[in-house]
């Protein structure tokens, strides 16, 4: 039996989003809008580079959670480059989302393979 080759094109769309500044209730709607657009365009994987996020509140967190939820529905995932600032990482630890979001290094933003 000859080898059957059934090749399908696997296109995984990864959105790499770098954020700088304060991600709070005021800025959250803009991020949500951006993410909504990616999801509508069949993006299922998201990398948020939070390195330079100065502060993160529950409204900002809610956007990340919302994106994670929808990504998972498409078998996708959300990964985070951990913020340098304690003011940004604090809420992730408090809410235990540090155990939910997979954290990666900044160098891993461009994936070497899945």
């Amino acid at each position, binding site marked *: 039996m000859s080898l059957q080759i059934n090749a399908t094109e696997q296109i995984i769309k990864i959105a790499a989003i770098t954020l700088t500044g*304060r991600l*709070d*209730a*005021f800025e959250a709607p803009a991020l949500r809008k951006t993410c909504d657009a990616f999801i509508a365009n069949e993006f299922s994987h998201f990398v948020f580079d939070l390195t330079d996020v100065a*502060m993160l*509140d*529950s*409204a900002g*967190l*809610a956007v990340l*959670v*919302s994106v*994670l*939820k929808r990504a998972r529905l498409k078998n996708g995932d959300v990964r985070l480059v951990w913020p340098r600032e*304690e*003011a940004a990482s*604090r*809420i992730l630890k*408090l*809410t*235990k*989302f540090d*155990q*939910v979001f997979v954290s990666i290094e900044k160098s891993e933003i461009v994936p070497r393979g899945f």
Partner: protein
Amino acid sequence: MLPTITDKHRENFKSLSSGWMRVGATCVQLRRGGEVLVGCPDSKPGSEPSIAVTSLASGLSLHVFGIADARWVPTAESMLEIFGSLLSADADLENLTGALVETQDRLVALYELTQATRRTLDMPKLLDLLIQQSRHLMDVDGGFVVLKEKGRQTIIHQVSEKPLHPAHAEAAASLYLRDPNRHVFKDSETLPADLKNVMMVTLPVRDEISAAVGLFNKTGNFTTPDIKLAKAIAGHIGAQMENAMLHKEAVERARLETEMDIARQVQTAILPQSIPQVKGVDVFATSTPALEVGGDFFDVIDRSENTLVFALGDVTGKGMPAALLMSMTHTIIKSASRNMPFTQPHQVLNRLNHDMAADFANVGMFTTVMLGMIDCADCKLHFSNAGQSPIYHVPFNSEPMLLEAQDIPVGILDTVEYTTQSLNLSQGDLFIAASDGFPESRNPAGEMYGYERMRAILSSSRTLSAKQIAEVLLADVNAFCGAHPQDDDRTIVVLKFEKSTENRIMFNESLTVRANYEEIRQPCERLRLNLRQAGVSEEIAGQCELALQELLTNLVDHAYEGNPNGQVAVRMAGNRGQIFIQTEDTGAPANIKLEDVHMPAPEDLAEGGYGMAIIRSLMDDIRYETAQEKNVWTLVKNL
């Protein structure tokens, strides 16, 4: 001096003349110079007298007409002599009578003068009486009195229709004072032109005053009795003047004593009877007035639970004016400190200076004032010093420091702007405001107590209570002065800061923002900045900021439900022990049971409901109250 020829003289002359007629004379005349005093017969003959004899003694001559016989000359001489003697005797008699009458007049006048002067103690009136009586008795144009006292302006008092030039009166007095044995001056070479003659006598008042009475331009000339009379009058008036001076001095002394009494009462009345106590400050104040009241004042006012205002000042001058200004100054300070919306001492001094500058200028006085305000909440002392000295700050861990006054006293310049200085107080710090009565106290040797002795006492007694420190200082000054009487008021305010600096307020800020996501960032940033400046760790600062951010977001979302015009007032304060964050909004009341708030499980991927749970996990206490349609959230973080 010859009297006038009387009828009796004519008769005598007629009977003597009848003898001449019998021997053939046609006319006999008695002459003085060319004037016929009496003649017999009265008609004047046309021819020259045949016999004419003259008496050198009396200046009279006897002329006989119609007998040209030298044998009758001795007879004529005898008759002239007899008649001359008669006239002379009559003249003496007349003079004597006149003198008697005059003496009687003068005695009456002196008596009247005595009576009049007994009723008056008014100097100018006495001088008037002196001159008027002298004029009346001596027939002069006028009189003057010259009073010379060392170090004072010469006084010239005149009574005359045509007063002398004052310089002329003084010139006459100088002539006399140069030679007090000479009383009458009529030498036109030494006297000014308007003085024909002048008589000067001494007015015996007091040793330190040289006074002279001058009477001038008498018809005829001054006689020895005039001098005697003038001396008598002057002696009497002088004594009366001395009485008047003594009386005036007694009245003045009585007035001063009364005034000092009132001044002392005013001062005692305005000094506080009790010293208010504020938690965290040990305060003591006292004032020991000198016998002659100075213008010291002090006050200690509890402005609020945490704020103590104290004042210490010294009005220049003594007596009633100082007491009045002191009481006005004190009233303004008291009311401005307590009731006005002034938060800084220099504002009170500006107000005081503005209100009082004119009053002080009117009496040529001013006041030094030290006004301080201790804020126990933030452990700070704010003070403004308008010329008050000495002021000492004794930090708990170093030597006393003398703080120089930074501004000029109140009441000198109405345009001056006063300034406030601030000190951070630590537990055990001393602040002492005193009046110059302390360092300037003297001992019997004349030495001053001085700033160095005061500094040393404050240094050695620093661990005592405020009251004990004041007592030790007062005792030391008293011991130094010994028997030397107290020259000036001694007033002191001692403050000892006792509050633990644990409660020192590090920041206290309030701001109001509109309830939208953009504006609520402001209080969050302010909180972070305040905490950073206060030296709170980044960890705690971040926790507090996040808690406030979550609370405010909740208010935007739930209390105001997105209504962007809603307002939120945020107050943030922190001391060494705690951080307080409080919000006030007028939105919908929160329908939440804090104890039921739990963090959603992350695996549920909830997109909300974290805010209040985050706040709970970050803060040590959360309180929610509604009052007067306001919702008040209070977050507390223990440090």
